[in-house]
């Protein structure tokens, strides 16, 4: 509330009040004061609310222009015509003083009645015509001349105007407290922070990093004013410029305890509506208001109904510690209530932003808060006041939470600074932590689903017993046992010099009992003890009924009938566990993972049975035991020790029962950028990567490339499209080879078979220009589509070291099956075979295939006559078979007189074409001889005649 006197409050409502205005500013070193003569109208106004920054505006209609940027002070004056007592002061020449004589004030005149500086002992009075209210300083923002009135329309704002600039680096070190952050902003803007040394809501909470610049320090189009708005939310305040001292202030609603009545209200437009509040719930919302945390005053909600304030997408309170801000905010706003109003006043003038005041109308009193005010000061005065109902929000609390750090987190974080949107769905149970997370940036879209299962369950107690439910068939993962005081050592009771067993002093044991309380076994006719729970079985209803010691049986009794006890496994700790003091005690330790069974001893017995600490601890290791637990709920008890520490971790029932591990981590991830998609699936058992598959689909700028990295790729599809781009697998492009036991293709494309089986048909229009090499080709058919097969050796060969064997379906024939081949031309240099049967055997004899052609001068008859013809059988034939007739080659001994002229080049066979030709020539020679003989016969016959 602006400082004013009670006279002022009375005068402002009076009929006939007189007002004035005064604007003061410095111009070129001179103080300029504009008064009512120069000022046609003044309109200070503002629109405020809680949780925001407010900039006050001053509109001036002036006959005098004021330069832009000028800082001026505006004061509103009300004529009070008042004398105030000012005795015993040193007076100044510029003040008029009066003395009261005969109920009349008489002016004292400087130089006549007193000199400047005189102390006047009489009761003197200071005359005050106008009382001024300070509306604060304003900065001239714009000025526009109105030619019709020859005046200037000047718009000014308070120094909040300095914050209407782009946010930039303010040279601070993070983390920084909220208070220091606001102070740094003020320093940067040239403002003074009024609350620099005071405490306000969340003043000491810390901002961890820069929030309003990107990582490169570039603007994110925030203005400092935007930041102050968010700081107003953080501090649950209204941030404004203080009217008195021109400082930036964290302002809360201030109760003025002032009441105005109907005389301060015009008789038109007076509306006082419903009461807003009391506020009793604070909601922090982000991600399109879908992700909320809240703090509530439950009692207030019960008493008054829900009234919430929702703060949306505040960058400072955007992180998962945001719920920490709620208590301070609720503390400031809890219970806040005020009346909605809209009224015109002939002038109040002295209320400030956020002042709480009362309006009394008739018998009603309305508690109001000044949020919106416009004061029209012309020749007259009119004040327009309204406080609106805040925009109502209604949060679905069933989908909101009190904190982001609870076990089940579902949130969407919009990091505008770094342009990152992260959505997380996290389900945390005692054993499982499931996370589904999507992170989106300008460049990347990453999604990840992870299921981390700690498939153990633990229990601990300082009373030696507890229960663990839903245990899987397994062995204990970890056991720890230690005594907690010297009266309860976990030990057998041994006779000592001062200790003897008696009827009341018996030997306890060191057993840990694992009792499966969901499984029972028949234990009739036994002597029972107090550590077992017994049940009788009702077969009709198929249920067990617990027998209670002392009621249904006495400990030690033998019970007849079908009595059941929990399925029990006892494990005995291998040595005593002693206790000396809080740092010296023995501890039993069993760890399945490391297969460790130890007792760490820090105490020992003295000879008299007392216990003393060991100078150095000793670790005794024992054989790792087998403690086979079955499925079910377990009661675990350190028998006889109700004051001992017991910790047991067991395997819990889980979805990974096929793996014996204490922790299983499954995750899959998709990372997508403009040129790359990365798919990854991992399974991690305990700390070992069990398996993982990684698929990277990457498209580079200039080439297309897809990579699949995996231990195993299984493409299970009925159809695969375009797997062969261009129907070609280019093995040489990237050193790709096909490798297998029987079939290999090198990176050059060479095919190697090792006992490979090729089944089915190989169909092609042409297979040419290649060499097929191998010891055996069997078990199939080589055929052409038109029943006409050509093996074209024009550019190839069947070399001399190879044999082509033709087998019939029985696998034994060497025949070429003539009926299936109409024409079979063999054009070969040399054919070696057992039998060839055909209609024609043609020896190629064209000149074009021959060279070194000369007449044969050899004597065919001599060659024939010098050879011997034999009868023989082939060695593959029986001796009874028909004998063959022919020549015999024995090159070494030459004993069979086979002429060399008819041998083949290798000398192992007969060149039939040469043999026939020699015979042909021998016939010619014989014919010549015959002709000569005929001629001699004719001559002789003629001579005889």
């Amino acid at each position: 509330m602006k400082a004013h006197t009670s006279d002022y409050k009375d005068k402002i409502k009076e009929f006939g009040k007189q007002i004035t205005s005064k604007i003061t500013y410095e111009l070129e070193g001179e103080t300029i004061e504009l008064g009512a003569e120069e000022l046609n109208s003044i309109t200070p106004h503002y629109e405020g609310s809680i949780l925001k920054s407010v900039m006050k505006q001053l509109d001036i209609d002036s006959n005098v222009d004021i330069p832009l940027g000028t800082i001026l002070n505006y004061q509103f004056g009300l004529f009070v015509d008042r004398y105030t007592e000012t005795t015993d002061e040193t007076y100044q020449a510029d003040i008029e003083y009066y003395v009261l004589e005969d109920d009349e004030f008489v002016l004292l005149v400087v130089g006549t009645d007193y000199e400047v500086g005189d102390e006047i002992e009489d009761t003197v009075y200071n005359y005050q015509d106008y009382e001024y209210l300070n509306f604060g300083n304003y900065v001239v923002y714009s000025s526009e001349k109105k030619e019709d009135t020859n005046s200037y329309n000047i718009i000014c704002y308070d120094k909040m105007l300095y914050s209407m600039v782009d946010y930039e680096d303010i040279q601070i070190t993070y983390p920084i407290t909220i208070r220091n952050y606001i102070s740094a902003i003020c320093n940067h803007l040239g403002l003074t922070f009024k609350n620099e040394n005071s405490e306000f809501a969340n003043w000491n909470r810390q901002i961890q990093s820069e929030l309003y610049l990107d990582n490169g320090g570039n603007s994110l189009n925030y203005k400092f004013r935007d930041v102050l708005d968010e700081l107003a939310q953080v501090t649950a305040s209204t941030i404004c410029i203080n009217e008195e001292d021109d400082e930036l202030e964290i302002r809360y609603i201030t109760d003025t305890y002032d009441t105005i009545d109907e005389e301060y209200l015009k008789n038109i437009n007076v509306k006082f509506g419903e009461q807003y509040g009391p506020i009793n719930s604070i909601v922090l919302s982000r991600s399109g208001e879908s992700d909320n945390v809240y703090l509530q005053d439950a009692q207030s909600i019960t008493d008054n109904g829900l009234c919430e304030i929702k703060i949306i997408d505040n960058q400072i309170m955007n992180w998962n510690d945001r719920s920490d801000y709620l208590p301070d905010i609720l503390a400031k706003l809890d219970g806040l209530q005020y009346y909605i109003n809209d009224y015109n006043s002939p002038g109040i003038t002295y209320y400030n932003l956020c002042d709480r005041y009362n309006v009394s109308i008739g018998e009603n009193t309305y508690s109001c808060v000044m949020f919106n005010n416009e004061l029209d000061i012309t020749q007259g005065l009119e004040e327009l006041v309204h406080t609106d109902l805040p925009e109502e929000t209604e949060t679905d609390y069933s989908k909101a939470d009190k904190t982001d750090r609870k076990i089940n987190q579902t949130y969407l974080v919009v990091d505008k600074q770094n342009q990152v949107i992260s959505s997380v769905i996290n389900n945390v149970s005692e054993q499982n932590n499931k996370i589904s997370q999507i992170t989106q940036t300008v460049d990347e879209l990453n999604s990840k689903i992870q299921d981390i299962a700690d498939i153990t369950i633990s229990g601990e107690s300082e009373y030696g017993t507890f229960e663990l439910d839903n245990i899987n068939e397994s062995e204990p993962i970890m056991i720890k046992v230690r005594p907690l005081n010297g009266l309860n050592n976990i030990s057998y009771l041994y006779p000592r010099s001062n200790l003897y067993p008696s009827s009341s002093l018996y030997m306890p044991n060191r057993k840990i009992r694992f009792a499966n309380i969901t499984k029972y076994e028949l234990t009739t006719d036994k002597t029972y003890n107090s550590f077992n729970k017994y049940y009788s079985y009702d077969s009709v209803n198929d249920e067990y009924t617990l027998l209670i010691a002392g009621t249904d049986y006495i400990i030690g009794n033998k019970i007849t009938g079908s009595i059941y006890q929990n399925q029990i496994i006892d494990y005995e700790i291998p040595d005593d566990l002693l206790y000396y003091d809080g740092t010296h005690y023995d501890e039993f330790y069993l760890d399945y993972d490391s297969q460790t069974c130890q007792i760490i001893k820090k105490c020992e017995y003295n000879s008299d049975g007392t216990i003393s600490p060991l100078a150095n601890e000793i670790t005794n290791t024992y054989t790792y035991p087998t403690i086979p637990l079955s499925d079910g709920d377990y009661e675990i008890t350190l028998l006889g020790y109700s004051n001992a520490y017991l910790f047991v971790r067991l395997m819990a029932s889980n979805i990974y029962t096929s793996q014996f591990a204490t922790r299983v981590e499954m995750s899959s991830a998709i990372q997508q950028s403009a040129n790359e998609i990365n798919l990854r699936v991992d399974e991690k058992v305990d700390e070992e990567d069990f398996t993982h598959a990684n698929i990277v689909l990457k498209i580079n700028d200039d080439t297309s490339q897809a990579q699949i990295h995996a231990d195993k790729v299984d493409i299970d599809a009925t159809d695969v499209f375009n797997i062969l781009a261009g129907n070609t697998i280019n093995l040489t492009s990237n050193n790709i080879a096909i490798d297998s036991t029987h079939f290999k293709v090198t990176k050059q494309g060479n095919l190697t078979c090792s006992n490979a089986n090729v089944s089915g048909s190989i169909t092609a229009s042409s297979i040419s220009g290649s060499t097929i090499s191998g010891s055996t080709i069997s078990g199939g058919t080589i055929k052409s589509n038109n029943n006409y097969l050509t093996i074209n050796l024009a550019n190839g060969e069947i070399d001399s070291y190879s044999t082509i064997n033709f087998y019939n379906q029985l696998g034994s024939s060497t025949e070429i099956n003539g009926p299936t081949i109409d024409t079979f031309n063999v054009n070969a240099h040399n054919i070696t075979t057992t039998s060839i049967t055909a209609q024609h055997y043609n020896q190629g004899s064209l000149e074009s295939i021959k060279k070194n052609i000369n007449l044969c001068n050899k004597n065919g008859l001599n060659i024939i006559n010098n050879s011997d013809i034999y009868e023989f059988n082939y060695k593959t034939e029986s001796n009874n078979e028909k004998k063959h007739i022919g020549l015999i080659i024995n090159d070494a001994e030459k004993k069979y007189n086979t002429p060399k002229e008819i041998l083949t080049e290798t000398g192992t066979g007969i060149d039939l074409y040469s043999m026939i030709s020699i015979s042909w020539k021998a016939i010619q020679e014989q014919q010549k001889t015959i002709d000569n003989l005929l001629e001699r016969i004719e001559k002789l016959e003629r001579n005889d005649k």
Partner: protein
Amino acid sequence: MYIDINSIQIKKPNGTYVSLGNYNGKCLIVEAKYGYNKLWASDSGRNLAGVMTGTLIGVFPKIIVQFKKLSKAELEKIVPILDAQNQVVRYYDPYKKDYVEMTTYTGDYEVTNKGMVGTRGRKNDGFSISFISIRKRS
């Protein structure tokens, strides 16, 4: 307020004053009314309690002067002053208990010529004019 023949004076452009009660030994006026008019702002009206409220812009002194029948020479002396944009009128203010000066504007005035028919004479009739302060009384 009349206290003597110099109670109302008008400043001439040369800075000297014309006393309306003593112009060359003659009194030019026959009557003067002193008014103190209150000017109210447009916010005046009744408040919610039914009480009149409003801003008093100020008290604006107004002097209505009734001139006698003026001669040609007298009119030629006075009219330029009356027709000027503003006048400075010096008068005795009983509120201030002293002579005060005020800048005024004048209202309309009409000089009537009587006896236009006949031969008895053609004299200007007397007329009245208002001197209204442009500023409120301080």
